[in-house]
């Protein structure tokens, strides 16, 4: 089979800046000899399905979309690979916050309480913190109430809005605990969503990884190889790519790895989060 001339990437349009980012990278790839184009999807499920159907060669996937792709591919006897990720996709943690004046001192004391989470499909603000509580002995929905803050379902929590709403609910007292990614604790403190000395960290998840570029084993090898090579060569010192890296939130692309998705794998096994999706794609 002859290789296509253009590498097609899929990305989810969680924000208008996505167009700026990929138009910018497309223009940067061209003089480097890589014909590149992209297709935007409104949700990760559609993107994974399109990827499986061969409409695109590489997908910029959320961690949940990675697992959807990997497992759906495995069912078909295919193999998925994470070829690259951002430096900022590695070793993240999520926090379970309580108000500073809360009597809650341990995870066990969340029993019977309301726990604010982000979008129901957000790994960082919902699935991973709920797994942390479940593995500590508190089963969501049974031992405590899960209060979801859905912002843009299908975008796997890429939009920050759900987490911010959970943090606001904590401050307002409508939940006793809130789950956010570690970087957003810092961001919400800086922007004033979380008041000074207003919250306490009750628990912190183990480290996990976030997005990656996913390919299947039938991807055009030399195009993918060139794409990966160019990504890894991008330098924050380059004034042309620097604004694009800033928009995408990284300083440097790194090689992909998949060990950091183990916890999320356990979460979806436990909660059955992608069972319906896998059944649907067959």
């Amino acid at each position: 089979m002859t290789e296509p001339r253009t590498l097609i990437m899929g990305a989810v349009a969680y924000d208008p800046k996505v167009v700026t980012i990929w138009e910018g990278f497309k223009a940067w790839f061209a003089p480097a000899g890589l014909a590149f184009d992209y297709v935007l999807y409104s949700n990760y499920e559609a993107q994974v399905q399109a990827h499986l159907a061969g409409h695109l060669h590489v997908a910029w996937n959320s961690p949940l979309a990675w697992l959807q792709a990997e497992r759906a591919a495995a069912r078909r006897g295919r193999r998925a690979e994470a070829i690259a990720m951002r430096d900022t996709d590695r070793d993240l943690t999520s926090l379970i916050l309580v108000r500073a004046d809360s009597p809650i001192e341990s995870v066990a004391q969340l029993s019977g309480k309301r726990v604010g989470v982000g979008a129901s499909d957000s790994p960082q603000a919902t699935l991973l913190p709920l797994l942390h509580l479940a593995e500590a002995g508190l089963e969501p929905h049974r031992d405590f109430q899960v209060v979801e803050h859905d912002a843009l379902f299908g975008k796997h929590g890429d939009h920050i809005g759900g987490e911010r709403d959970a943090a606001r609910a904590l401050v307002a007292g409508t939940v006793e605990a809130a789950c956010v990614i570690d970087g957003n604790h810092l961001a919400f403190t800086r922007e004033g969503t979380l008041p000074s000395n207003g919250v306490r960290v009750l628990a912190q998840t183990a480290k996990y990884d976030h997005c990656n570029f996913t390919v299947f084993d039938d991807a055009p090898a030399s195009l993918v190889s060139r794409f990966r090579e160019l990504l890894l060569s991008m330098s924050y010192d380059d004034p042309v790519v620097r604004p694009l890296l800033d928009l995408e939130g990284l300083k440097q692309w790194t090689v992909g790895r998949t060990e950091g998705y183990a916890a999320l794998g356990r979460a979806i096994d436990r909660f059955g989060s992608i069972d319906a999706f896998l059944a649907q794609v067959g």
Partner: protein
Amino acid sequence: MPESAFVDLGDLPLGEGGHLLLKRALWQAGAGERVRVSGSASTLAVDLAPWCRQQGHELLELVTTEPGVSATIARGQALGARHRGAERAGHAVASRPDAVVDKPPERWGLAARGALVEAGTPRFGFTLDDKDAVWTDDASRLYAQAVAAQWDPATAIPWAEAPALPDAVEDAVVQLMTYLIENETAALILPARFIARLHPHFREVMQLLAVQAADEARHIEVFTRRALLLRSELGLSTAGGQASLATLLDEPDFALASFLLSVLGEGTFLSLLGFLREHAPDPVTEAVARLTARDEARHVAFGMAHLVRHAGRDPALLPRLAAAVERRHDALANTAGLNDEVSDALLLLAAGSFEPPALRQGHARVMTLVADMDAGRRQRLVRLGFPEAQAEQLSALHTRNFM
């Protein structure tokens, strides 16, 4: 490995300003060097890792101490990236050598002159970017003078001191004001258009043109207010008058437009406003003419200053200026020029009444005005470098509409 720098955040959380202390310590350290940080804020342990990740630093070690944490961070390459390849856009103080460059690059864009400009800024396309065409070392001084000389129409003009004038005289004043308003409108639009094209590197020129446009806005206000002081309607705007002004607005070249507007047009208006002040039938008209003339003199001074400099550097400029006058004259050859209503109004103001001896005297005064206008134009043309004979010829070709 050099000794690590150390910063103690005390109980300050990273998200409430602590990051500035850490950033300063990392900035002072070299690339790859280590900084040790400690603090007792309860959230420091969870904030340090994401902060380092986002900033491109490596969190080498995080140890819980009592109270708080102690950490070691290796400074990443990204810090200072915006400074690498950045260039200094001249100098803010125009009088410093090399402060104002001959051809500021597009990439400097809106940056303050003298700022350190990060590489990779967007291109703006300011087409008026040639120092020879726009600059004068007098710009700073003229701008300071312009700002200091701003006057408030509400208090600078004795609006309450307008006596009832004979109807014909009041009509003449209203007609003259109507004429002045449309001329000043052209004089507002022209610099405003050039501001939008001017490279902001030439800051003082940009500021001066902005004040010039604001001056004209005020002039339009006071001329309108004087016209409506005792009347409810304005006078006649003629096709010929507007045709003359249209040729000004059509001129895309800054030097030529500035020459036609400031040197010839506003220069001629200096005589006209002086005439109005001298023969004003009331204190309001006198004050309006006096104050607006003061601003116009500054506009003429700027036009002269940058054109004298330009002409000194570009021998082709004077022939281009001469050709512009001739072209405009040809374009206006078949128009009426100054409308009868305006010329009659001038004569009547100078006469003061319809008595024949007064009218004769008024006519003589208008003739003197026209001669003064011509003399002023010739003098400015000579200062620009035109020979006397050519100055006389070009002055004669100037629009009969004055502006």
